[in-house]
């Protein structure tokens, strides 16, 4: 197995190569406004660092959100196009599951916890996990005040709202290495991953830009 993994659902632009056993290389840049510029160079760089020719890849794992849409789509369309051009399967991973995978690796294994990322507009994207790491609730998008999270919580969304998520800590954003690790484990266990379809969780803002407003009052 040689997986190329990346995620653009959080402010991090992150890419990694995973051989089914371990992460061979990983890049991580945090810049919420430049997903489009940073992703492809990051993918190229990580393959070089891993010494892997793109034609040897066996699959692509991509974070399908939830996350702010504009950045999220950069990852998904890149995955779809790379999969098409290189003839590779594309495996979708819920970004919150990847963060949970990393949180367990960093010490939360054996405890239930909640992952929350920043959904902007005073809301968080969130999901809760049991002591075995299974997702028990979510993904959802809600105002923090409307949530009753687990006692432990991670993610930038949790750090942003300490009233709802007391004692929240890292990982703040998703890492492609963890995403790849999660995908590799699921694939090795014979489980299906998600289709390469965004988890928007919200309906589109049906706002037509200025220029179409009525001329005279009704």
């Amino acid at each position, binding site marked *: 197995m040689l997986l190329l993994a990346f995620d653009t659902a959080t402010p991090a632009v992150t890419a990694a190569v995973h051989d089914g056993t371990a992460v061979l290389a990983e890049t991580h840049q945090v810049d919420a406004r*430049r997903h*489009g*510029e*940073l*992703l*492809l*160079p990051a*993918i*190229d760089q990580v393959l070089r660092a891993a010494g892997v020719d*793109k034609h040897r890849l066996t699959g692509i794992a991509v974070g399908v959100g939830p996350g702010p*849409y*504009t950045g999220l*789509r*950069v990852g*998904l*369309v*890149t995955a*779809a*196009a*790379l999969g*098409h*051009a*290189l003839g590779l399967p594309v495996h979708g991973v819920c970004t919150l599951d990847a963060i949970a995978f990393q949180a367990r690796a960093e010490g939360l294994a054996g405890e239930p916890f909640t992952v929350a990322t920043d959904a902007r507009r005073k809301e968080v994207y969130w999901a809760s996990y049991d002591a075995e790491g299974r997702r028990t609730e979510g993904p959802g998008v809600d105002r923090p005040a409307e949530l009753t999270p687990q006692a432990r919580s991670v993610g930038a969304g949790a750090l942003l709202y300490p009233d709802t998520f007391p004692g929240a800590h890292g990982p703040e954003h998703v890492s492609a290495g963890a995403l790849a690790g999660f995908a590799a484990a699921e694939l090795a266990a014979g489980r299906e991953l998600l289709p390469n379809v*965004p988890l*928007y969780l919200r309906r*589109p*803002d*049906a*706002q*037509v*830009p200025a*220029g*179409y407003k009525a*001329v*005279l009052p009704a």
Partner: protein
Amino acid sequence: MADEPLVLGIETSCDETGVGIVRGTTLLADAVASSVNDHARFGGVVPEIASRAHLEAMVPTIQRALDTAGIKASDLDGIAVTAGPGLAGALLVGVSAAKAYAWALDKPLYGVNHLASHICVDQLEHGRLPSPTMALLVSGGHSSLLLSEDITSDVRPLGATIDDAAGEAFDKVARVLGLGFPGGPIVDRTAREGDPKAIHFPRGLSGRNDPEYDFSFSGLKTAVARWVEAKRRAGEEVPIADVAASFQEAVTDVLTRKAVKACRDNGVDHLMIGGGVAANSRLREMAQQRCDRAGIRLRVPRPGLCTDNGAMVAALGAEMVWRDRTPSAFDLSADSSLPVTDVHVPHTDFHGQAYHALGGGAA
């Protein structure tokens, strides 16, 4: 010619996911997936709906274009994409896809200007553009007079709308008349039954001291709305066809008069008209008459190539390859307000090193 560059072009600046494939100046495929029906009930293009549709349509539309052209992606000599101007989120989907294809296939990437592409598409209909060419671009997003010496490097704006684009005025008037969205085709059809001289609507920026080549359609749009509303308030029936015809006459009168004047003033004997509004039958007719009278050769692509499409991007990309222009770097960004003078977005020297480091400079 078999040795002419084979280029795939991706266009996602608004609500059409367009993928075109051309060889030199020959059109091989022009696949379009449109989300226009999803926007109709909002009376205008909703950016988030457009962006979502681009993501869904991208790979299927690429495959459809490849199938139609009867080529493999590995046969291509380059990938071109609209880098701007347009809706930021929509552009980003196309730019990201283009980079992924270019990188995966080891092909040069060309981020090009949407407006220059609208001009260059005419090469697929009428052969290489003469130098210089005057272009009148009219659509829902733009209304400009552009003078081009070389479509890959030199496009100069002579004038543009100072408020609404011509196509926006069509949409607005269609709404006022209850005809639906998008307004261009419906107003055109409705106007055929009407008298273009029935009502004299104002010709914006046509006074002696007004800017020669700029346009204004906001006042016209308001005048039509006021006229219609006055009729309705008076309890009279609105002569819809006459209003549509008279409004359309005012728009085309100003557009063609200024375009012909720009040609004359600059000693240019070719006028190209592009953009969605160039599909308007009255505009084509009036432009032909006025150009004939002025001894100017008119070039207007068929309506299907006037609206936004991938073929126009591929046409400009092929010209970039043909003229050996510098490709774009993989950190190319989508620029919603890309100036018309930036015909394409080559990498700078700094980026050039990165580009070569990425293996993109290989022949």
